[in-house]
């Protein structure tokens, strides 16, 4: 890194001496064209939308009349808006439970898969990965069907064990848990595959050394496996936080009664495309962005600090 910057700096000095024409010749035409294309693309589909989001968050706009500047009122409104707080609560509850249960389960699965031989490992892995491959809409309608209170698959299973019938998605108190269970089913295979890949990267000689030292299974797990897959685990956590907070289709298509399962993502969508409160929708979406940014930075920092030993 330092060597390359040093050469780059040396080149800069040389080029300054040789003048502008020499420097222009060092620029690649292909690179410049690509750079220009990338700049145009990201201006159109990133910078302008992102700038618009920030601009919109200070406006009142319903898509029909002219936008009206309202200062920071949209953000102040969010703080007083009960719907916003309920959506935030639903989002956080869902995210925390899905991630803690999902990642623990994935870790357990990866640990068990690690004990298996190649062919079996592949077979199980593929089976766990099926829900990740299946289009979300397909599995959502499938689970909605299985969650039906009368004659649904889950209630049939409960009945066969003599357990009471449940309302699942029709109940205020159960809908969010039903959705969380579904999302865990849909995502756990993906997390397990990533964690297993992390475990496969742990150098074999460390395990052998530990075995020679007489370390037991759990000791090896906590002292070798866990510390060494920490970066992968941190990555998985960050990706899961971003994924669960932004998750949309489940809540849109499987939603429970009232506001019991309305997340921030669904709220943003409704503000933007159903109640046409674009300014406020943009403000809410920016709050989500800031939350995710803070969460990501904090998580990455925490894991890096503890990892460097």
């Amino acid at each position, binding site marked *: 890194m330092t060597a390359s910057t040093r050469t780059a700096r040396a080149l800069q000095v040389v080029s300054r001496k040789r003048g502008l024409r020499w420097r222009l010749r060092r620029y690649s035409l292909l690179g410049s064209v690509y750079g220009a294309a990338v700049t145009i693309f990201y201006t159109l589909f990133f910078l302008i939308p992102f700038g618009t*989001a920030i601009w919109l968050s200070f406006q009142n706009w319903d898509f029909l009349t002219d936008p009206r500047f309202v200062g920071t009122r949209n953000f102040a409104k969010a703080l007083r808006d009960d719907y916003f707080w309920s959506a935030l609560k639903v989002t956080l509850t869902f995210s925390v439970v899905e991630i803690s249960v999902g990642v623990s389960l994935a870790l357990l699965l990866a640990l068990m898969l690690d004990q298996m031989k190649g062919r079996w490992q592949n077979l199980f892995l593929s089976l766990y990965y099926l829900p990740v491959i299946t289009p979300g809409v397909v599995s959502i309608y499938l689970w909605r069907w299985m969650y039906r209170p009368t004659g649904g698959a889950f209630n049939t299973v409960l009945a066969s064990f003599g357990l009471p019938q449940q309302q699942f998605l029709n109940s205020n108190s159960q809908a969010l848990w039903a959705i969380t269970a579904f999302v865990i089913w849909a995502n756990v295979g993906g997390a397990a595959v990533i964690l297993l890949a992390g475990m496969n990267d742990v150098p074999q000689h460390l395990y052998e050394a530990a075995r020679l030292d007489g370390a037991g299974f759990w000791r090896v797990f906590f002292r070798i496996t866990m510390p060494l897959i920490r970066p992968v685990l941190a990555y998985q956590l960050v990706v899961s936080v971003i994924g669960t907070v932004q998750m949309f289709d489940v809540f849109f298509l499987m939603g429970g009664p009232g506001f019991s399962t309305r997340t921030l993502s669904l709220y943003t969508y409704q503000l933007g495309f159903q109640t046409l409160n674009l300014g406020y929708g943009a403000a809410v979406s920016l709050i989500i962005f800031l939350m995710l940014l803070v969460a990501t930075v904090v998580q990455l920092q925490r894991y890096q600090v503890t990892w460097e030993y």
Partner: protein
Amino acid sequence: MVAQTIGRTGQRQSAVRRLFTSGRWIQWFVGLLLATFSLAMFYPFLWLIFSSFKTGADIVSVPVSLLPREWTLSAYRMVLDPNRANLPRAYVNSIVVATATVVAILATSSLGGYVFARLNFPGRRYLFYFILSTTMVPFLTLLIPLYIVMKYLRLLNSLFGLWVPALFSSFGIFLCRQFIYGIPRDLYEAAKVDGSGDFEIWRRIILPLTKPVLSVLAIFNFLGSFNSFLWPLVVLNDESKMTLPLILRRMADRFGGTDYQGVMAGSVLVAIPPLVVFLIFQRNFIKGIALTGMKA
């Protein structure tokens, strides 16, 4: 006494250790646990497949049974009837969009990786960091304004609107750049001496060498595009332009009440292309995830 206890736990520990390291039955036990779990994971798919062969009366009968009382293809006939659902059309739309997305992303990522790793042009470093930083902004934040941009570009309610905003992939460019850094310079320095241009070098040398990364990018972007729901929901209005997930939602609204077997049959048909891709490239999947940490 204490020493004895220590000795005994030491012995027990080594016994446990032996079970975990060399005992074969522990592997059987773990295998059994994993197999049970895979059964639980697969159980919903059994309902999906069997329900799609049921009759309308069968699927709502209580108590419900997993297997159809009477096997029938009527649900499939129902969803393939163009007067009742636009499924064949949606198939074409989905495949067109997914193919266009994948081709575009492979070309721009591979070229971008090369450009950012090896070529010199003004603002190269800042542009790259900028592209990386865009991944920090969630799609949800861009959703409403992106819709407005698409309106101005007149790309709403058209298939272009689905894949044009996905022409470049920040993650793809980043991945290819990392990979191309690992390719020894000598491999194409010779071509340069021979007088090949940058583009020629990319096409003849870099493109074939980045195949492993590109195949991973292709698989995951194909699935991502094929399965995506929110963006098509926002962009498309006409039923003739809808992709498979949207059509499935239409079918659920239409048949959901009394003909849920139609929804199931539609679901099976919608799930087939991604599953076929998965089965064909199964080995690349696992390798690809290990390589990139990516998932659909």
